[in-house]
């Protein structure tokens, strides 16, 4: 028993923290709010890539670092602390184990219907639907200007062509006999990605070689089931946006609690697969499986239809998001401690008032106890523990609650100064609100824990 980061893990985390402190100051986060699509400054992103963070979970033989979640999660905490305006969880935690190294920037709708990503143009899109995960390569992804509270998050959607292709590919009833696409197709996908990246890749990237870039992979359909695509159409989405007061749940749950079915519906229709909880017997895919996944398709292609793999992807996303939340909460607490020490009212520092002290002690307490839950879940995922799903849910529930609490206390202790976009606090606050309700909110994950620990009676499950 030893519940602490190893010196290696600490060193890696501290290096990431230092990098982020230098390259991801609040001004960088602010710039991401205003960056037009395709013109996002990705200096810090490329530096993280150069450091190996994005492919940390990928085996060394595949160009990754071959490390596990106990290394990545503390780094994600730092990414949260910096409010990093890039989809690091989606890319490093969710996509990398499925797609391997070099997939570029990845967004996904696994965590909710919003498919949030940065304002960049070469985003690979992982979409869930009909019990499968498909990948839409950057060329077929478009950014739509949906207003979100945290404007460093954008919404990417697949173009109509990509959707049509995806459906076409997936309605092919013949199983693919060869799991790799032709070189032609491969280079097509690769060139789109490479062309875009040329514009933005900084000279400081000391690691990525052309060889690396040529490893960019897209994926093909090996599954013959017709897609019963339950994704929300664009029309439905715009309806949601314009009349949130009146939107009705079109498929009411028979039980009034948000059931697992319900939530997987929110997660864009992976109904059939999310509740299928076959225990994973091996936390790493075999090489055979890997090469199957890496097979290439036209513009949207099947990544996996293995329920266990999708479940693990959801768990990785939830845990990565939990880590971001703990970091965000810590950042807000630190900002506020600094502020209330400087700010004077009634002739003394605001932080000397007992009410302010108690607000911030509460925030510190919640974060202090959420953090071990997040680290433990990383260990459980890395070691494929039987309790991993429960541990991930505990981490996400506690991190969501702690970060939301820290945000509330931070805003209250800042007073009017925090209630402006000129102060930095809002950058962290709005990210917190978004992430607390993505990848399953606190109530969802608490109910998942309740089921795992047997708090639900047989009748109510």
């Amino acid at each position, binding site marked *: 028993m030893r519940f602490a980061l190893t010196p290696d893990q600490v060193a890696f985390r501290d290096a990431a923290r230092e990098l982020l402190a230098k390259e991801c100051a609040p001004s960088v986060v602010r710039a991401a709010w205003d960056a037009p699509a395709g013109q996002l400054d990705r200096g810090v992103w490329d530096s993280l890539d150069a450091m190996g963070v994005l492919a940390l979970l990928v085996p060394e033989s595949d160009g990754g670092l071959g490390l596990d979640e106990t290394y990545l999660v503390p780094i994600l905490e730092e990414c949260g602390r910096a409010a990093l305006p890039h989809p690091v969880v989606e890319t490093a935690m969710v996509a990398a184990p499925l797609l391997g190294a070099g997939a570029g920037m990845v967004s996904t709708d696994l965590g909710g219907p919003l498919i949030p990503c940065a304002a960049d143009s070469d985003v690979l899109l992982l979409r869930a639907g009909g019990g499968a995960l498909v990948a839409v390569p950057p060329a077929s992804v478009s950014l739509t200007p949906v207003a979100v509270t945290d404007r460093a998050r954008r919404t990417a959607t697949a173009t109509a062509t990509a959707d049509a292709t995806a459906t076409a590919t997936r309605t092919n009833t013949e199983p693919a006999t060869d799991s790799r696409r032709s070189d032609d197709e491969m280079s097509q996908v690769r060139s789109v990605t490479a062309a875009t990246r040329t514009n933005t890749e900084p000279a400081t990237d000391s690691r990525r070689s052309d060889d690396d870039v040529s490893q960019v992979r897209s994926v093909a359909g090996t599954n013959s089931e017709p897609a019963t695509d339950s994704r929300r159409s664009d029309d439905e989405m715009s309806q949601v*946006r314009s009349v949130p007061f009146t939107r009705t749940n079109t498929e009411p749950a028979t039980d*009034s*609690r948000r059931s697992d079915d319900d939530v997987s519906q929110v997660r864009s229709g992976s109904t059939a697969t999310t509740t299928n909880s076959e225990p994973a017997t091996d936390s790493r895919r075999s090489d055979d499986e890997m090469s199957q996944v890496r097979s290439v398709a036209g513009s949207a292609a099947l990544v996996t239809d293995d329920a266990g793999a999708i479940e693990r992807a959801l768990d990785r996303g939830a845990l990565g998001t939990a880590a971001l939340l703990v970091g965000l909460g810590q950042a807000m607490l630190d900002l506020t401690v600094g502020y209330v020490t400087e700010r004077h009212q009634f002739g003394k520092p605001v932080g000397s*008032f007992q009410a302010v002290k108690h607000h911030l002690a509460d925030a510190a307490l919640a974060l202090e106890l959420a953090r071990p839950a997040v680290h433990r879940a990383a260990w459980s995922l890395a070691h494929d523990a039987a309790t991993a799903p429960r541990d991930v849910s505990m981490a996400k529930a506690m991190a969501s609650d702690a970060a939301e609490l820290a945000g509330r206390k931070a805003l*209250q202790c800042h007073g009017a100064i925090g209630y402006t*976009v000129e102060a930095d606090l809002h950058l962290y606050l709005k990210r917190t609100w978004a992430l607390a*309700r993505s990848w399953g*909110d606190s*109530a969802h994950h608490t109910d998942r824990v309740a089921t795992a620990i047997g708090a639900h009676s047989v009748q109510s499950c």
Partner: protein
Amino acid sequence: MDLTWSAEEERFRAEARGWLEANLAEWRADCGGEPASGDTRDGFAQHLRWERRLFDGSWAAVSWPSEHGGRGASLWEWLLFEEEYYRAGCPARVTQNGIFLLAPSIFEFGTAQQQAGILRRMAAGDDLWCQGWSEPNAGSDLAAVTSRARRVDGGWVLDGQKTWTTRGAFCTHLFGLFRTDPDSDRHRGLTYLLVPLDTPGVTVRGFGRLDGDEGFAEVFFDGAELADDAVPGGVVLGETDGGWSVAMATAGSERGLTLRSPGRFLATAERVVALARERGDAGQQRRAATAWMHAEAYQLHTLATVTKLAAGAKPGAEASLTKLWWSELDVELHELALDLLGPEAEIDGPWSKAWQFALAGPIYAGTNEIQRNIAAERLLGLPR
């Protein structure tokens, strides 16, 4: 005890409802789509047209005497009007800081000339008033005001800075506290001044509130020359050097009855209940019922308060409890709405916007920490 409305009150309610529904529809049509936020420059202009409609129908300030643009409604009728206003889904009042915060002080401390010259133009939206209390170093600690006014022949020379001035960038006038006795400190030697924002030497800079709208402003005074007659009846409200007591009366209004009527929260509660019915789990539906009860309790508490006021009582420190209640209720309601929306909550729609606005409630009009101190000290009598 009689918890029924009289036939006359019901007629008043019906009239208000009919007028509001018809005019709201017309105004919306007039806007050509969903009106923008009243805290943006474009939205403010749209909302002024709504305010003008209200004034033309004598609904802008129902409880004021008709000579000032009101209709002499009782406090009960005012409550009914507010209930109908929010039930119909009418927009937040961009004129509220004048009508609900300044006007009560004008009625209490203003001369007849000031009343005649200021109130009707305020109700009509001809003059748009913003509040100039806070300064960079005087937030909760209002008595730390350092903006100063120096007496000169025929007027005042103003220097200093106000900030967090709601909708300051769109308004025409500011009311606020200035230090007129340079040797004074704390709450002595302050004067309550009425300042046209086009006074030379005044600069207004709008800036973004939490929700990104330009809802705040900084107002800079650099030797601004304020003539005594810049406002009809004079620019000093109450006594020179006696502004603190006038301001405290305004602060009382802000926390109390007039700023946040129960109707506003009842309407939100109904919408949250509907949302919970449509997409909530049992736990969320229970939370919706709790929030609804809290809104309903605020309504009941207000009915009891109005009964007392109608019998001649003065509002007191109970206003601190009221402010705590509605501000935390508003957060409760919107937090539940966001939880019901789940991952869709981050879309920057009405609920998300209203959530961000609700978060200001525990901060403005005296932070809830200050209110709890006041409640403990003045209502419970705990030692300072």
